[in-house]
């Protein structure tokens, strides 16, 4: 089965013309994000994030392993992500698509290499025992901007997860079951968020934030900016051939800063609400 056909000529013309009038098909402003909706599962570290009809499920679990000899003092984080045909009929099973490669690399940069999680705090016994955190990203539905949704789901899963309390007596490691002692949240340095802007072939069309599926398909280029609410830039990735000036990139970053502060507030609030709703028994 070949790749799905590109959008038809009437769709393309209508989208370009309405974007010139700053009208988007879902009624948003050009720099307005779809509101993220989080659903937390029964387990800690189980988060479903939805941006409109785009839905991603992130699941985090931890286990104890022996650290690698190169880094005996650091925990291990691995990220598994796969875009299956479940997300959209555009994706085929087996061979990874370009989108999947881009997404895997971006997730790795945004979640792991940005040092969001303090890896040294995952060490239990130097050279003997460390935590291995495994994040699995399931893309449930793709209605555009899967990357931002996956990054958001991943980082919220890290913030939602709590690992069991561990006690070290000499060489012996005691793991306390969550029912004995309250599990502890991961120690995090910062919370990076990813924002994707789409640019169109016509230079008079303003850039748009959080493109929908059709907008993404018809855009001339995308720029993904990952940063945290403290205005610390983590990753900038530009895909597509459209040339951007320095001012345009800086302008996009300025907008992303504002959005990151807003998003950070929403995430923190939702996590607090969820934590209050959970009954943790400590005997």
């Amino acid at each position, binding site marked *: 089965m070949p790749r799905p056909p590109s959008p*038809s*000529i*009437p769709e393309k013309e209508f989208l370009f013309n309405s974007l010139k*009038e700053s009208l988007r*098909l879902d009624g948003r402003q050009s720099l307005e994000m779809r509101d993220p909706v989080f659903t937390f599962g029964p387990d800690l570290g189980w988060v479903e994030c939805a941006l409109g009809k785009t839905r991603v499920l992130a699941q985090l679990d931890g286990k104890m392993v022996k650290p690698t000899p190169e880094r005996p003092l650091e925990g291990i984080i691995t990220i598994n992500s796969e875009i299956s045909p479940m997300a959209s009929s555009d994706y085929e099973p087996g061979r990874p698509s370009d989108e999947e490669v881009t997404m895997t690399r971006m997730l790795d940069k945004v979640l792991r290499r940005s040092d969001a999680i303090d890896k040294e705090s995952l060490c239990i016994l130097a050279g003997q025992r460390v935590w291995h955190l495994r994040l699995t990203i399931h893309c449930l539905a793709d209605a555009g901007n899967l990357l931002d949704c996956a990054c958001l789901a991943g980082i919220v899963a890290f913030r939602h997860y709590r690992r069991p309390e561990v006690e070290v007596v000499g060489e012996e490691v005691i793991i306390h079951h969550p029912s004995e002692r309250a599990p502890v949240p991961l120690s995090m340095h910062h919370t990076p968020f990813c924002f994707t802007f789409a640019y169109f072939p016509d230079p008079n069309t303003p850039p748009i934030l959080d493109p929908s599926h059709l907008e993404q398909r018809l855009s001339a280029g995308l720029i993904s900016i990952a940063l945290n609410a403290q205005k610390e830039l983590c990753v900038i990735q530009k895909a597509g051939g459209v040339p951007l000036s320095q001012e345009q990139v800086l302008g996009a970053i300025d907008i992303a800063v504002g959005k990151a502060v807003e998003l950070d507030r929403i995430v923190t609030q939702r996590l607090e609400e969820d934590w209050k709703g959970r009954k943790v028994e400590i005997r």
Partner: protein
Amino acid sequence: MSETFILPGESVPAQHVNLKLGPGLLQYATVDQESRVASTKAGELHHSANNSRWWIEGNSKRYIPAPQESVVGVVTARSGEGWRVDIGSAHPAYLDGLAFEGATKRNKPNLKVGSLLYARVSLAHKDMEPELECFDAQTHKAEGFGELKGGFLVRCSLKMCRLLLSPNHFLLPLLGSRFTLEVATGLNGRVWVTAKEAKHVIAVARCIEAVDPDGGGMDESGVKQFLGTLDR
């Protein structure tokens, strides 16, 4: 008329001298040459008052072509004398160059890759590529079939496009009373819409998405309120 929920593979007690089976039902013969009917998709089982017609009504996103259904398709390639058209089915459909009103070898419509079409499925066999025609089967006149120029394509679930075609559904008359619009509804979950202003087209697209039982499932009063918020 009774309504029962049915799953794929269940046997259906459809027996009639003049039996007509609709989508989702399959007739087969057992080893001892007995005729049986089984369902091939999930949904509500319906039958006519005299038990001669049976069909299944369900909701899905993937279109399975059936003869004589109107569809909206996108031309994806030229092939030989005709075109290959994407109608959302598992295989692309074939549209012959002569399958238009008044088309001859010399005088064929000029369709480009990416053009939108309103066509009728003329052949749908499970082992063959579906075929399309752009004229009415009886009169051989265009009757609205052909290339769709301008406007916008809205995608919805298969149940939504059947609802839009139903004369009792509220959405299109309601929208038509607010502004002029032109709509071509394909049974493959694609609706082509055009109106004078871009914001009207966007309003129609958003209403269809909101009413879609697959998404919002909004009712009539909800849509009236929703339209009020869209008028700026």
